């Protein structure tokens, strides 16, 4: 049994929109995750480096 083309086109449009929503959901999900420790450590290392280069002077 073959579906009418119009119905198929609508299904395709629907899937296209679903892909857009899912892309947004992935992006939002990651953006809502807590910042991993690696990243915090990295930022702290930058600090440490600054302190070193300043010769510990404050």
């Amino acid at each position, binding site marked *: 049994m073959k579906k009418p083309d119009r119905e198929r086109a*609508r299904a395709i449009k629907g899937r296209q929109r*679903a892909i857009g929503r899912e*892309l947004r959901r992935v992006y939002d999900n990651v953006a809502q*995750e807590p910042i991993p420790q690696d990243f915090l450590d*990295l930022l702290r290392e930058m600090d440490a480096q600054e302190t070193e280069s300043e010769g510990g002077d404050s």
Partner: protein
Amino acid sequence: MTVRAMAAEVPPASSVTSRSKAADDAQFKSDLLELIPFLRAFARSLCGNQETADDLAQETLVKAWQARDMFAPGTNLKAWLFTILRNQFYSDRRRAWRQAPWDQEAAERIPGSAGEQSWAAELSDTARALSCLSDEQREALILVGAGGFSYEDAAHICNCAVGTVKSRVARARKSLIAILEGDETLPPAVQPVAGDAANEILAQLDRLAPPAAAEAARKRFKGTV
């Protein structure tokens, strides 16, 4: 570790560091911290893989820190960071999804071939479709469609004209349609997100997101069905 190695190459700050420079740096760093979640999200959308995405985001942070004096305070730091991330992504081809731009033939031989290291392993339908877009179309779609950037900001990030971004987004959408048209596994129902399709997306979320985020997403999602 590459990131550590890179960090070690940061040239020492000027020894005549003024108080205001130190204050600027502290401010810059706290701004960076705030934007990390978005950097990670953009990187993940580009790479489709958590590990490479987080590496990319970390390298971006290091580069941004090294180049912080070139950032004009008061301008869009998020766009500036995204530009760095994007340039890094492209200069580093090992991270690319697939080299070949989307074409009609590719649409017919997509399944799974995008590689285990990418989206394809994690997200079936979306990944397969996105992996068929050209890099330029995909990033335009991500920035405008998921990142919420204006066409103007996206154009700035991609270093191209506003009209170019608009046409890339339009072509990306058209390409998706063409890809889906060439796909024999279209769901029979007209409703794209219902029943099995909804369960499939929830299952994908579970694989992709940590439990807490997946749970929150599930609640949001259930509210809409």
